[in-house]
């Protein structure tokens, strides 16, 4: 197994893929976000409940590869407690992590190892659409323009 691959399938990512955060539907939610990748068929439904302008609950259902599943799981976990403005910054930072021309070192973007693990996607351009799938769908829903 190559070093590059080991980076991509870091333990943080595998952990989320195998034991995802809050998999399942929410009883009450304000947003149901459908993330679909027509190229590979990966498909997730992200449930978010925003009360008093903050995310109080998030979960997801669906099917996808380890990368897309873990990234959706990490998203659901990390937006908890955030308001829209904070989500905007958070998502933008994550997308910078994935960007092959994004900032180096990664610590400039985040110190969270769980998020940083996804920077390995920089080496796998064909997997970018797995790593950002739910994130772009969320942006489309919350910030339609």
């Amino acid at each position, binding site marked *: 197994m190559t070093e590059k*691959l080991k980076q991509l399938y870091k333990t943080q990512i595998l952990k989320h893929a195998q034991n995802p955060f809050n998999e399942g539907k929410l009883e009450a939610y304000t947003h149901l976000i459908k993330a679909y990748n027509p190229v590979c068929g990966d498909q997730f439904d992200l449930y978010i409940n925003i009360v008093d302008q903050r995310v109080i609950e998030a979960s997801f259902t669906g099917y996808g590869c380890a990368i897309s599943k873990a990234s959706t799981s990490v998203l659901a976990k990390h937006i908890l407690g955030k308001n829209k403005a904070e989500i905007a910054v958070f998502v933008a930072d994550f997308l910078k992590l994935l960007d092959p021309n994004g900032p180096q070192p990664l610590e400039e973007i985040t110190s969270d190892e769980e998020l940083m693990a996804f920077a390995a996607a920089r080496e796998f351009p064909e997997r970018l659409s797995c790593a950002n799938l739910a994130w772009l769908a969320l942006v489309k829903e919350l910030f339609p323009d």
Partner: protein
Amino acid sequence: MESLKSEFPIFANAEKEGRTFIYFDSASSTQKPQSVIDAITEYYGGYYANVGRGLYWPATQASNEYAKARDKVRNFVGAKSAKEVIFTSGTTDAINKVANAVLLPTLEADDQVLVSEMEHHSNFVPWQQACIQKGADLKVIPLTTAHTIDLAALKATLNSKVKFVAITAVSNTLGTKNDIKIIVRLAHAVGALVLVDASQLTLSERIDVQKLDCDFLTFSAHKLFGPTGIGILYGKQALLERAIPFSYGGGMVALVNQDETTFADLPAKHEAGTPNIAGAIGLGAAIDFVESIGVAQIAKHNAALRTYTVHLLNQIEGVNLLAEDAGDASILSFTMEGIHPHDIATFLAEKGIAVRAGHHCTQPLLKSMGLPATVRLSFSVYNDQREIEQLKTALEEIKSFFG
């Protein structure tokens, strides 16, 4: 048959660079033999000119080679006349042209068009959109448990309202093969026309359009060792003559006046504009390459590799082979318990093994099988058993990694 790897320069080039390259994605597109590459280079470097116009020697030679390529195709599919062979940019283009120029002008509300559940999106969406446009019904024929078109269901669905039946000969996802001859006979019995998507058939059996009696048949050159951007539409002469021109412009006209135009005879009538000359010449060379080995030989080689793969992969617990029994195919799809096809494909790619993961442009098929995606292997003349053993080892590693 020995692997013909040495005829395909990409493999020697990869080796020179020290890169492993095991190519199991020929159903998507085959690699190119030196003879095809040379034919294209010779045209561009040796006698380049447009066809059908110039009176100077390269124009004459280019026109001759272009005509020769058409005749090679005619012979390859067993058509009566070269007039029945129209160059298109590929299968997708050919199907759209038939849908637009043959079906649409005669399609009425409440007419029906039949496709099958295993169609590639290219042989699905054009018909679906034509039906939507005219308020006609698109009916999707289901598959049997053996993953071939259910002939009983087809029979039950056929009626005099069915104007067109569009079916693939071989599933590009599973490798299973339909009985085209019977399907054509059944469709003709109710007066429907039949288009056969032969994209995956060309290297699987010798095509004989007269025996099949299909009205249209199409394939892309790039799946049989030829270049991209060129494909074939075979059509029965009377139908091609009756159809409105596929598109309008130079090269397809006889007389142009301000108020009206008379069109050229077949095949020019359906080939407006400067054609893909290098593509046609490349396709001609690809057909020469195929004929020099023999379609039957190629099919046998591929099927033997598939059988060997079935044998080896069945030894890995958790591997689920799809349509395992489609013995004479060159395509084999599988899934692995708990591991997504894309993760498998990325792992294999890092080892230099090229496979395809996804829905293979057959979403209705995968939906019917309850699968979001598969890993697809497809074999060709440059593959050998050793490569399949390497694949097996890699899959075992993947399993223990994710396990």
